[in-house]
């Protein structure tokens, strides 16, 4: 075998060689923008230059055929430059308004929905799941495909009070992050330990240290050094699983899905907010997770009907209050909604302000 090649540690590449010429020319000198229609952004530079951005949905995990098809479209109907957004949508940039419609027609014809701009529901930010991760309780791409089929209309139209950012994650680690709506795995039973494997596979002190509630103790089980879990303490978070695969947390039955709302990253109007638990105990029902889709649609319907323009999910709920949220969505409020984690005091209603 040939001698090993020495890498060039070049890091993050300079984007200018790949950037649309109009964007290069007007870099840092943009004046304003508007949205002629859903899926299209129109930015005007101080120089007077204009650029139209057409945004389309993809499956993120793309086969080369799909990518090449997008490239063909980009060459024929756009100007050979594209971007991928934070949410894995593709953006085509064109220098004149009259290129927009043909491009949209072509994209739709080839099965790429045009939308995801402004106050629409954009692509769901998601993760790896059964396709590639080593610790997933469910799939990622499949959940997203199933949901986006249901939310197709909302992706292509701007009918929501504000942008809706949805995320899914295939374990409680939650690589998908915070979202206006977040759909995450929630385990409901402590891990079952494969004691024969612990000794060879796991650094026991590391695993013990990972547990957020100190529920794991080193133990000798049938002669071998292993671990034991205090099931009274265990909150079934699965944090012990990555460092120690024998601590089987994933379970086809007891690994459920939970739904959270009100996560927000922007500092726009309200400060950034974490998403809050609203529903749990939903079955991990591959391949299309209908029960999850049901709840998500209930929440979106209430938000769409009741929120005021520009109110993000968390801002809407802050105004109408949680009692009303549960009323409007018909979701049950349980003792599990009341936080008991560190600092939970701050989540209690420390006032005489109540709603009826």
């Amino acid at each position, binding site marked *: 075998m040939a001698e090993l090649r020495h890498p060039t540690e070049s890091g993050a590449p300079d984007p200018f060689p790949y950037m649309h010429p109009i964007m290069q020319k007007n870099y840092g000198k943009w004046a304003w923008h508007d949205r002629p229609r859903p899926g299209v952004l129109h930015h005007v530079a101080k120089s007077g230059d204009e650029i139209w951005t057409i945004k389309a949905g993809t499956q993120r995990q793309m086969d080369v055929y799909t990518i090449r098809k997008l490239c063909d479209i980009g060459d024929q109907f756009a100007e050979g430059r594209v971007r991928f957004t934070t949410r894995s949508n593709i953006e085509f940039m064109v220098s004149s308004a009259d290129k927009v419609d043909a491009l949209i027609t072509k994209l739709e014809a080839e099965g790429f929905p045009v939308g995801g701009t402004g106050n629409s529901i954009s692509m769901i930010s998601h993760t790896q799941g059964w396709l590639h991760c080593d610790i997933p309780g469910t799939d990622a791409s499949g959940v997203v495909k199933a949901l986006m089929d249901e939310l197709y209309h909302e992706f292509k139209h701007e009918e929501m009070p504000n942008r809706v950012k949805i995320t899914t994650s295939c374990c409680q680690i939650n690589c998908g992050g915070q979202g206006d709506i977040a759909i995450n795995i929630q385990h409901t039973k402590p891990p079952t330990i494969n004691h024969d494997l612990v000794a060879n596979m796991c650094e026991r002190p590391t695993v013990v240290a990972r547990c957020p509630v100190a529920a794991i103790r080193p133990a000798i089980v049938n002669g071998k050094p292993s671990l034991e879990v205090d099931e009274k303490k265990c909150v079934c*978070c699965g944090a012990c699983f990555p460092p120690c695969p024998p601590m089987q947390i994933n379970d086809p039955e007891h690994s459920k899905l939970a739904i959270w709302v009100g996560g927000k990253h922007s500092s726009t109007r309200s400060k950034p907010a974490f998403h809050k638990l609203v529903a749990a*105990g939903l079955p991990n029902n591959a391949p299309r997770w209908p029960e999850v889709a049901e709840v998500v649609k209930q929440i979106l319907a209430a938000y769409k009907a009741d929120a005021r323009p520009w109110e993000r999910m968390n801002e809407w709920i802050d105004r109408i*209050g949680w009692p009303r949220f549960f009323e409007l969505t018909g979701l049950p409020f349980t003792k599990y909604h009341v936080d008991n984690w560190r600092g939970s005091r701050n989540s209690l209603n420390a006032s005489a302000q109540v709603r009826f």
Partner: protein
Amino acid sequence: MAKEMPKTPLLDELESGPWPSFVTGLKRLAQSEDKPYASMMKDLLGQLEHSYETRKGYWKGGTVGVFGYGAGVIPRFSEVADKFPDSSEFHTLRIQPPAGMHYTTDLLRQMCDVWERHGSGLIAFHGQSGDIMFQGTDTEHVQSAFDELNEMGFDLGGAGAGIRTSMSCVGAARCEQSCFDEQKALRTIINNTLDDMHRPSLPYKMKFKFSGCANDCVNATHRSDFATLGTWRDDIKIDQAEVKNYVAKNGRKWAIDQVVTMCPTNAVSLNDDDTLAIDNKSCVRCMHCINVMTKALSPGDDKGITILIGGKRTLKIGDLMGTVVVPFMKLETDEDYERLLEIATNVIEFFAENALDHERTGEMIERIGLVNFLEGVGLPVDPNMVSHPRANSYVRMDGWDEEAAKWQARKGGAAAAAE
């Protein structure tokens, strides 16, 4: 011949200025040569001046009480009795006032007479917990003073690890915002739990306070373990004619700036015809708009109370506000008052059994979690108890379906109940 007045150059500086001077008052007492307390008050002034000079306090506690009671007297023995022998003892009796702090001049005069016979002639209306504080007497006169006051219909207040003297706002007696009978609620709970006040044996002090509305004029939310505040379930009452008068008189900008934009939940809006529209579903009963337009707005008719538990000062985990454990209950019928007393006694019992030594209700709840407390005292969870649901996934939820069923059942019930 009469004992000399102590030199009090520092205290004397507190006799100048327009505000009523307690020093002048102390001197008057010290100079009442015909009174038994004169010499005691001379030495008290002496010791106080000494504190001002050295910037240190010189009292220590001890055990002094009245027959049959384990608390209600704050004993004070001087550490500088050698210098100021006549105020070597300076105990305080804590006496519970009429709920709402109403007095006839006649009653006040009687109290003065008692305290001239048995004490220093110094009385505080009131302590921060609401007691009348008869300040300054010796061990022997603690009993005789109490006996006379007790004959007049007055009783000792709280101290130590027990139930404390309570306060209720003026409320129904003179306030249109009052949503329940504050003094009745106070007396229902306090006068049925006196054993825990007079012979304290709880893990730590426990306070009850009663405010007729969210304005909370007795600071119940923060300064009591068990806060009862008035509220209402139906719509705010609006007299649109009066609204128009306000707007006509003060202008639209005033209405927008001082009412509309001040509503914490954006529930108020000003119609083009200068009437008000209120989104009562979003209203949190904060009282603001009602406070501003007293003539035009008032609490609804379906009045009741909200109960908060756990308010306290800073030891040893930091200040706590009370948090909602009963979002709403009616307080009209005898049954309602019995239920209130039942909730109070359940909380006291749970506190007695579950709190650690020197731990207040709020600290206990912080330690065991609100849900365990609610289950312990038999109160159902409600979204009004949280400012938001949990934001972390560190919880075991395998009982989800059962809990969800409970909620549905209750909602069904409620729906049925609300005829």
